[in-house]
């Protein structure tokens, strides 16, 4: 990498570090692992920067981050595929918190965090990319490597699961 490429990398790819960390943190559900994986993903990004030919740099980086996360999950025997769409396991997850505790300030945020963490990873990633990180369906399709129509149906199902986990009275007010 020559100095122009280095400057270009620092100007275009480094600013998306927070986005990379947010995605990794939610996919791995652990801060320490997220740091390791993001660092590894950036190493891959530097090495492949020569092959990057323009386009949406955030999507490009998040695609690498996602890929690195999945490799990590596979390596650590968290079988993403078997938990992905298993209705019997994930069909009726409910938050076990004391309902009164949830009335407390910040409890809604905690309940939401837990509900999102309980989603299978394929659903979790579309919710995070869309509702937390604000990507368009087209960008999500690019990051996840699925058609836009699949992004839409997967997001629908993910939100439906969240609604089942979180009773409407928990977030319905305001």
């Amino acid at each position, binding site marked *: 990498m*020559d100095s122009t490429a280095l400057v270009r990398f620092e100007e275009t790819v480094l600013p998306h570090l927070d986005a990379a*960390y947010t995605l990794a943190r939610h996919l791995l559900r652990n801060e320490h692992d997220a740091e390791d994986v993001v660092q590894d993903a950036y190493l891959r990004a530097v090495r492949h920067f020569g092959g990057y030919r323009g386009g949406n740099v955030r999507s490009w980086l998040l695609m690498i981050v996602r890929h690195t996360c999945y490799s990590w999950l596979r390596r650590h025997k968290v079988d993403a595929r078997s938990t992905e769409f298993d209705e019997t396991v994930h069909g009726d997850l409910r938050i076990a918190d004391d309902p009164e505790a949830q009335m407390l300030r910040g409890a809604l945020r905690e309940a939401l965090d837990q509900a999102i963490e309980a989603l299978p990873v394929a659903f979790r990633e579309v919710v995070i990319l869309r509702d937390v990180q604000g990507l368009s369906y087209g960008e999500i399709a690019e990051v996840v490597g699925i058609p836009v129509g699949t992004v839409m149906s997967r997001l629908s199902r993910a939100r439906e699961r969240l609604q089942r986990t979180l009773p409407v009275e928990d977030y319905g007010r305001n």
Partner: protein
Amino acid sequence: MSCETLSDKLSGYLDGELDERAAAEVEAHLRQCVTCSARLEQERRLRAAVQAHVPPLRAPERLRSNVRAMVRAQAKRARRRQTWLPTWAATAAALILGVAGGWQLATWRASQGDESDLAAQVVASHVRSLQGAHLTDIASSEHHTVKPWFAGKLDFSPPVADFTTEGFPLIGGRLDYLRERQVAVLVYGRRQHVINLFVWPSRDAGAAPSPVSRRGYHAVHGAAGGMAYWAISDLNEAELSQFAHLVAADLSHSTAQP
């Protein structure tokens, strides 16, 4: 539109991601369906709650400085390699030997190693090629134009065939990377579908076309005539398989008659 059909489009409607016609269809259904209207309202509240209470995170400072340092170290290392090469002939020769050895190792790994990782890279490259403006480096339906274009850009000469008579016209070619090695990509069309054909040298004596499915895309890969290939498209599996057999036959043929 039934409630069933609507359920998949509800998120798209809420997020303003439907085209006008689809949005109008959803609205028409919502006007007469209380259940779906209630569902939409619930989904709207849920989305608002997530957006309000689950904020994007900020990377820890330690990570920020580690990443920055790593990027700089990588750049420095790559620069050192570049300045060596032209200076000392002996070093250059040693490096070239190293590269050749590395390449053999890479192709060996490609044949032995984790095929799913390669599949993921092929899919990612296919998706990138369709979404960016970068499908081809050279756009031409003439294989006499496309083949010489690769000369000098690659350390091998990919066979370039036009399958127009079989219904797969050549659209063009580009360079791409798979497993950190440069590969040739030939782009073909089939009706409105695009097929990306990745080709690179392989020591694999030959492997019959075998199908793989990833994230809704079909791919067929194999090896013939000293080349490994991956064909990928959103085309149906049968037609893609037909295409792969044409490719395999052509690859065997082109080495038999150099």
